[in-house]
């Protein structure tokens, strides 16, 4: 019984050490993450997707009624919040 336990301990230790060493080797040889400065020159690195701006509130087609919270307007006037309406001729 005692002999079986020792064999089992030795086997577990060997498997753990082997797994650790294998992982170490894999990570050491894996390609490094590309830095932001090299993204444009490395063709293997996909460019970051460009987000399209949200459509203006009055640009929706089809016509519908909807509600939304009021734009967050600070107590002072600011240009940072979304305009409620737009003017540009028609």
């Amino acid at each position, binding site marked *: 019984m005692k002999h079986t336990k020792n064999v089992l301990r030795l086997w577990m230790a060997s498997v753990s050490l082997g797994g650790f060493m294998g992982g170490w080797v894999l990570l050491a040889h894996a390609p490094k993450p590309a830095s932001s400065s090299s993204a444009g020159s490395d063709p293997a690195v996909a460019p970051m997707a460009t987000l399209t701006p949200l459509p203006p509130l009055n640009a929706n087609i089809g016509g519908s009624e909807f509600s939304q919270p*009021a734009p967050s307007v600070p107590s002072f006037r600011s240009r940072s919040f979304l*305009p*409620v*309406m737009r*003017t540009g001729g*028609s």
Partner: protein
Amino acid sequence: MHFDHFRAMTTEILFAAEGRLEHVRLGFREARAVIRDGERRFTRFSPDSELMRLNRSSGKWREVSQDMFDLLLAAQSYVAPTRGLFNPAVLPALAASGYDRSIELLEATPSTPDRHSPSETPPDFAEAELDPDGRRVRLPQGMQIDLGGIAKGWLAAKAAERLAEYADGCAVSAGGDISVLGLPKDADGWSVGLEDPRQPDRDLTTLTLRSGSCATSSVTKRKWLQSGETMHHIIDPRTGEPAQSPWLSVTVLSPSATEAEAFAKACLIGGPQLAPELVATRTGMVYLAVDGDGRLQGSAQSQELSHVAGLEI
């Protein structure tokens, strides 16, 4: 805040209102009816509209609706102050330049090169006779009028008045002709993006409209090809041809929606030589022009604009 939007008058209509939703919904319905009714009455693209019936009766007295009479009266009152640069009697010139059907149809099927004859200088709309007692109008023989722009401003103001009966504060935009009544919740005005005429998906700046109206005229909207040449819908009454302006667009803020529309058009046609003089004669009016490089000009430099319109650049 609650919103409602739809298409009418070949443009986008947008309502914004504060208040209880069940009340505001009723207001949206009523305001839509105002727009729809006005569209039927003032369009030049339906032979049965009141406007086209009036045009067909030029040379004779014709009784008109109260709405038509009020709008014509307002339109005529701006002819002299704009030195004739605002003149609704440009319909034959518009048609001669190729704009003889709705802009959707025109963009789909451009005019053929020989279809139209050269335009003539439009007659003076001040010569139209308006009889308030009989609510009658007599256009001089041959005069044909187009109320497209000023009707949008007038209807935006009318719809805002109706919507305000059901809302704590509201704004109505008819293709960028905007009228506001009351204020948004927790804000000191309605934020209005000033569209870049060179790049319509971005704004050059944001205006804060606290009361009254604003309107924009632009040579970059409603364009079409005619004999290989790009035309637009802003007709210079002095020549009968699409206006040659160094500006791409002019936005006018005014207590009155029809006044804003009429002067936006006049300032765009008049350009930097005439616009400052035209606007200087009006109370509470400011203007903002955008040139070909996207530079803002006009009242923007004055303290008055910041005070009256809350403009920030």
